[in-house]
């Protein structure tokens, strides 16, 4: 049964259980919000979304108030507008006045609201916030002075990721957001996923920048500077340059990277293929030899750290494979260095990732060979856009180029790693071939596609039923692990991604990512898979060559040394 409400003197229908905000949004009516996050519990803290409801003395927060039949609502009455404006003025009164220097200049929601509400004079001035920067984390920089206490980061960290690394600390005007006992993020439970950055309305949270170091290395003639980019980057980068969401600008990006001065441009989707060779072989090995099952993917460094902190007992279930970023790093400084006759110490290896946790992964001690890091620096999608602008490259005017061979050629199985379910699908395709010696008739595994937080399927291979599950958002992983711990035996392989929807929604992606852009990015990845000729990792000719010339066989001695890793329990609070 639908309800009728009257909004600004027009009758609209609403559904029972809607909040006022839901109903308004469904009819395309906008009310400004700050603390609201779609899909999470309403908090009603910022009071930006207030509306006037007839018969109610006080203004009502539309994000948390359920609609009632016959409700009469004014969304932009003089009183409402004045109230919203005052809130913004108060928020600005103690906010640092350094917009010109701020990371989020131009993409700041507070700045936008000040503009929208016509705040054009300083009516209220207060003491400016003065907190220390937290630069302790390898991935995320926190600037509590710019925090407006909307609490979105706290809620994402708790409700989506189940991590709760940060919380409101203190009370009243002295409240700020911090880790337990005000220790840095580096020693907290933070898994570096960066979802907090994605929801932060201001510049209080950002990635640890690596641009300056890369600039220096690009200018150093003794260094061979190489770059690899993750599957989703060729699509999400488009949005940073005003292309429509979902457009694949891989070719233009390759050209731009060469203009900037990178000596070699490689595609991480190639090493995603390599990951599949190793991981699918490991899965087959575990299934046929009675190894620890379910096997769980280890591509996502946010998930890996989470498991090391909260799920120690399942560490043996994690695949020992390094992530594609780290596999590529290891191959660049061994196989590629050897082939090109370059000393690995003279290679500076950069990666572009949709992810902040990759910055943490890159500096893990396990990810080195003889004291040389597999990967030296990691850029997020946002940072790459900044680097391209810094070098004055016009993305509209350059012609597309191909990535370098041999580490730049991929199958489409490697490409779909960018979306939740992609690793699973790619692994199923190759595992099927490894077990039966035959290719799947239909490569698509629809049951593991889509943006749902949890997907499950049963796959028949050679009369053997293999149960697979795909989760994204670590809270969903926690729930699934609990089921496995409590005796679920029908799942043999699990894919976990920390960010909801997978890497297309990573913590390093463009600010302003929303469901619509996510769908466009996902669609684009699957279209690439649809149209590409090579749809399985084991048919990538350069992967075959890599094994022939260098690695030997999957899970072999060299693979073990270069492409596999181990995990350890972490004691953090």
């Amino acid at each position: 049964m639908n309800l009728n409400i009257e909004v600004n003197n027009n009758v609209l229908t609403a559904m029972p259980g809607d909040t006022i905000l839901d109903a308004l949004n469904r009819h395309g009516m906008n009310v400004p919000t700050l603390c609201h996050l779609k899909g999470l519990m309403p908090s009603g803290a910022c009071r930006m979304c207030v509306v006037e409801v007839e018969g109610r003395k006080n203004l009502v927060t539309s994000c948390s108030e359920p609609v009632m039949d016959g409700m009469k609502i004014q969304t932009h009455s003089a009183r409402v507008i004045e109230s919203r404006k005052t809130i913004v003025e108060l928020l600005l009164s103690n906010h640092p006045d350094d917009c010109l220097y701020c990371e989020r200049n131009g993409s700041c929601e507070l700045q936008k609201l000040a503009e929208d509400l016509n705040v054009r004079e300083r009516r209220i001035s207060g003491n400016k916030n003065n907190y220390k920067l937290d630069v302790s984390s390898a991935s995320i920089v926190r600037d509590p002075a710019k925090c407006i206490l909307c609490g979105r980061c706290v809620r994402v960290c708790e409700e989506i990721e189940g991590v709760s690394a940060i919380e409101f600390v203190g009370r009243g005007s002295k409240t700020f957001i911090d880790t337990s006992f005000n220790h840095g993020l580096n020693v907290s439970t933070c898994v570096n996923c960066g979802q907090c950055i994605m929801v932060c309305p201001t510049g209080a949270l950002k990635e640890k920048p690596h641009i300056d170091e890369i600039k220096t290395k690009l200018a150093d003639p003794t260094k061979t500077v190489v770059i690899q980019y993750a599957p989703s980057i060729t699509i999400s980068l488009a949005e940073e340059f005003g292309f429509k969401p979902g457009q694949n600008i891989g070719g233009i990006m390759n050209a731009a990277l060469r203009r900037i001065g990178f000596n070699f441009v490689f595609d991480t989707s190639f090493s995603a293929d390599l990951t599949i060779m190793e991981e699918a072989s490991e899965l087959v090995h575990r299934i046929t030899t009675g190894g620890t099952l379910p096997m769980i993917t280890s591509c996502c460094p946010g998930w890996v750290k989470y498991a090391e902190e909260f799920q120690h007992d399942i560490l043996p279930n994690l695949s020992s494979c390094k992530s594609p970023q780290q596999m590529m790093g290891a191959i660049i400084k061994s196989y590629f260095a050897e082939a090109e006759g370059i000393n690995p110490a003279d290679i500076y290896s950069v990666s572009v990732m949709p992810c902040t946790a990759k910055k943490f992964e890159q500096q893990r001690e396990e990810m080195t060979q003889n004291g040389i890091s597999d990967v030296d620096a990691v850029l997020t999608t946002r940072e790459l856009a900044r680097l391209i602008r810094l070098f004055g490259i016009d993305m509209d005017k350059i012609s597309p180029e191909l990535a370098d061979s041999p580490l730049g050629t991929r199958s489409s199985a490697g490409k779909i790693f960018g979306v939740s379910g992609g690793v699973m699908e790619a692994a199923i395709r190759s595992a099927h071939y490894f077990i039966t010696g035959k290719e799947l008739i239909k490569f698509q595994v629809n049951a593991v596609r889509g943006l749902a937080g949890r997907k499950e399927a049963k796959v028949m291979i050679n009369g053997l039923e293999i149960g697979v599950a795909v989760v994204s958002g670590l809270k969903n992983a926690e729930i699934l692990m609990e089921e496995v711990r409590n005796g679920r035996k029908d799942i043999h392989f699990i894919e976990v991604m920390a960010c909801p929807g997978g890497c297309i929604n990573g913590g390093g992606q463009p600010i302003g990512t929303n469901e619509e852009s996510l769908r466009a990015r996902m669609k684009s990845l699957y279209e690439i898979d649809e149209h590409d000729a090579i749809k399985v990792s084991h048919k990538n000719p350069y992967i075959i060559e890599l094994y022939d010339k260098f690695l030997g066989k999957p899970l072999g001695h060299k693979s073990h040394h270069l492409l596999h890793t181990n995990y350890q329990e972490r004691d953090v609070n």
Partner: protein
Amino acid sequence: MKSKVEEILQQYPNAGRDSLIPILQSVQESLGFLSEESVVQVSKFLKMPASKIFGVATFYNQFRFTQPGKYHVMVCRGTACHVLGSATVLEEIEKYLKVKPGMTTKDKIFSLEVVACIGACGLAPVISINGEFHAKVTTESIQSIFETYRNREV
């Protein structure tokens, strides 16, 4: 041997998050403050993130996170004391002890706390050191008050 915190936790079988504050109060009563270790122990016991517990504990004035000094100084910041200059008194004490409220001096002799009112408005501005009240404190009298306590230590 069981730690003090473990003994406390034992008194709360099947406790949920609603028992958090009573547990923290017992821990503080026993240790004199909430140590990091004790917060972690409580967090494991209640299956609640340590950051959440820290958030709750910092919300309330009653919890402290540093070991109290041998002499615990409470500076009244109630209305009467405020009118008679307790802000300056507090500032002077902070300068003299070189600590902020909630902290303990390096030599662990004094710890400083600000309280809303100790109910001795007639003596304003008033401070209490281990329960002994000092009335009508002035910036001049602070040094001699604290020296009396310090002299007991040598």
